[in-house]
């Protein structure tokens, strides 16, 4: 294998692993902010316990998120030196701001975790959530800006192989910045709400500590409501993204939908298998005109097809499967949250049924997988470009020796980290009932 392929695999591996923790990092602070706020307002120790237990588990994932984030930060220069030399002129600002946001979050998270019992007025401690949420959201926004820049570069000119006349602000707020940030934040909130819901559902099914039942049910209710709100936002974000791609990155939309010939009344294709040579699609569910409608709210919209894009600038067609999986998993989670909330309101007997708990338990893993597939789609959909329209992936990779060695080393590292992180997290809550924690926190001990 050549170093381009290995560099791509290694980058994909690091990011694929990092985004699990990054997603938790985006959504989790908001979750314990809400729980703690409810707890103080309603004077309900259950919510406070929720916030404390969530933030305790969060520390473990933050550690892995921080170190894997450090890895990808440096790996960008190590694996793609040419890109960083060229793009460094333009992406420096959002990258720099990301570290500030992260710094800010790290400081207040440290304070938050160690000052539960320091303040007389509990709202003082709650206020610490604000800088944490601001920090985590801003760092997600800035880093998304860097990635958006690679998809839709803006704010510079190319002269003799150098980027000149740079406008940092225009580069940072490049065309895809808003759409993609919205998508990242919405799915982050949705995923983490569903992950916490899954945990509550599994705990209810296991029923190891009988006294914890009402605690977990309360957690389930809260997370399902937040999950539903964020999934609605996610659907809106998805719709905006489709319209955006139609206007700015038609080749990605065409590859996602196996749309070969430019036409109006374009079909939306679900599932199916493609014969790449004959461009024939088998076994697909075709929804007439829907792609045109999604692209610009009218079935008569003309959608650009892949055949009108230069052969060496077409994204790989495999992205269609990632698109399908992302949408299906997201939609299923959304549907399950509706079913659960309907049951909660109208069929209270259902909420203890194991079929419903099973369904709820699926939402967390499904949304996390949807995140992964979404990123595969987004990143592979911009192939063959590293900096779309300016630098191809093959020209950006390192020539250093030992890339395959590092691939193996990091692969082993992520396996070990993944296992030990799950092990520690499971052990942390396995033999410890929430009720016991609750009694302790009520007594003012931590």
């Amino acid at each position, binding site marked *: 294998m050549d170093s381009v392929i290995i560099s791509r695999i290694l980058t994909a591996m690091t990011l694929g692993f990092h985004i699990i923790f990054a997603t938790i990092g985006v959504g989790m602070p908001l979750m314990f902010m809400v729980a703690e706020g409810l707890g103080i307002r309603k004077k309900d120790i259950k919510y406070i316990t929720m916030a404390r237990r969530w933030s305790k588990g969060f520390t473990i994932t933050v550690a892995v998120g921080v170190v894997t*984030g450090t890895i990808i930060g440096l790996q960008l220069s190590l694996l793609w030196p040419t890109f960083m030399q060229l793009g460094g002129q333009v992406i*420096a600002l959002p990258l720099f701001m990301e*570290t500030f946001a992260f710094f800010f979050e790290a*400081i207040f998270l440290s*304070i938050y975790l160690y000052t539960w019992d320091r303040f007389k007025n509990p709202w003082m401690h709650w206020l610490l959530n604000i800088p944490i949420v601001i920090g985590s959201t801003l760092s997600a926004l800035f880093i998304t800006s860097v990635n958006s820049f690679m998809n839709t570069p803006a704010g510079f000119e190319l002269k003799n192989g150098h980027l000149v006349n740079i406008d940092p602000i225009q580069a940072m707020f490049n065309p895809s910045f808003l759409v993609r940030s919205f998508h990242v934040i919405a799915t982050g909130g949705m995923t983490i709400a569903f992950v916490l819901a899954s945990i509550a559902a599994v705990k209810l099914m296991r029923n190891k500590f009988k006294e914890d039942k009402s605690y977990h049910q309360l957690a389930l209710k809260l997370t399902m409501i937040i999950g539903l709100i964020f999934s609605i936002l996610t659907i809106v974000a998805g719709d905006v993204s489709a319209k955006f791609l139609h206007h700015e990155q038609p080749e990605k939309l065409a590859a996602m939908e196996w749309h070969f010939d430019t036409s109006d009344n374009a079909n939306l294709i679900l599932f199916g298998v493609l014969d790449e040579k004959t461009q024939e699609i088998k076994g697909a569910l075709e929804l007439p005109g829907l792609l045109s409608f999604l692209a610009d709210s009218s079935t008569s919209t003309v959608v650009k097809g892949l055949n009108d894009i230069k052969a060496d600038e077409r994204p790989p067609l495999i992205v269609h499967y990632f698109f399908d999986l992302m949408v299906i998993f997201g939609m299923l989670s959304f549907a399950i949250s509706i079913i659960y909330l309907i049951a909660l309101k109208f069929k209270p007997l259902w909420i203890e049924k194991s079929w419903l708990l099973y369904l709820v338990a699926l939402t967390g893993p499904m949304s996390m997988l949807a995140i992964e597939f979404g990123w595969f789609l987004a990143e592979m959909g911009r192939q063959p470009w590293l900096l779309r329209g300016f630098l191809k992936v093959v020209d950006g990779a390192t020539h250093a020796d030992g890339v395959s060695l590092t691939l193996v*080393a990091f692969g082993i590292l992520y396996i070990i*980290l993944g296992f030990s992180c799950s092990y520690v997290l499971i052990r942390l809550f396995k033999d410890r009932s929430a009720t016991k924690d609750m009694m302790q926190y009520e007594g003012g001990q931590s």
Partner: protein
Amino acid sequence: MDYQHIGILVLWTFLFGYIIVGAIDFGAGFFMLYAHLTKKEHVINNVISRYLNPVWEVTNVFLVFFFVGIVGFFPDTAYYFGSTLLIPGSVALILLTIRGSFYAFETYGKDSKTAWKFLYGVTGLLIPAAFSTVLTISEGKFITKNAHGVILDWVELLMSPYAWSVVLLSIVSVLFISSAFLTVYAQKAKDTEAYRLLRNWYLIWALPMLIICQFVFLSLRQHNRSHFEVATGQYWWVFGLSIVFFIIALLMYYFEKYLSIAFIFVLLQFAFAFYGYGISKLPYIIYPYVNIDKSVVNESMAFSLVIVFILGLLLLIPSLILLLRLFVFDADYVKGKKK
């Protein structure tokens, strides 16, 4: 001041910050392991974990700040360092990852494992060694440029006395700075036993510290004559002051007088040596390929980076002070009366 000088000053300051907080952190990890193996754990564990718990995450950000900043201000460094540092960089990253995550697993998790402590303690000494390669490479001779890109000469690097003396310097500095700080911290905590032990460690590491610094100078003379000459010709007084501060601090620790001030002298000792090294190296970041006057990022970007930096500091400094006041400088917390 030009943008390139503001840029390099900012970056150098953050690197200095990382070296200090990182050294305290790395050394503490190693001392913890050492105490565990020699069954003196009960003596110093409280002091160390009380300090480390709230600040370890912040330490890491100093590093991220540095390498993001250097690529931002001087994009050419991404190309040269990036192309040549794949192996040492990856090694450092893997060690850093192991250390950071297993620290969290050990501290916040339910179980405590000797293996985790071991990983945590040993990586603390290897990380500075791996990172010191960056400084070594930046002195030139180890990298060459050809049609395909830049290449690192491994054999040359591994055989170089200069490279090894820098590695040794980084390890000794870690143990030296860390024991100096923790001595003060233990005294504040009124933990006499820990204080005695840590002070002894500090005094033990003082002599190797002095010797290794001379080695670095001597081998630099061999390795990069012009840098050595600027350092000893123009900036000899900076290094001279560094030694003076070293001696003052050592005497204060020895006679156990005003230890908080003594630690400031330790900081001054390192600051003078570090800035002296940096300024005598200019205008090169990577000799002779990256010259700060020629490779600074374009003007509009440099301007916005400086603005963001100032705004960022306005946000960071008060937050950092808050963090320090709540934990490191809070007498009750340090003594263990507060959780």
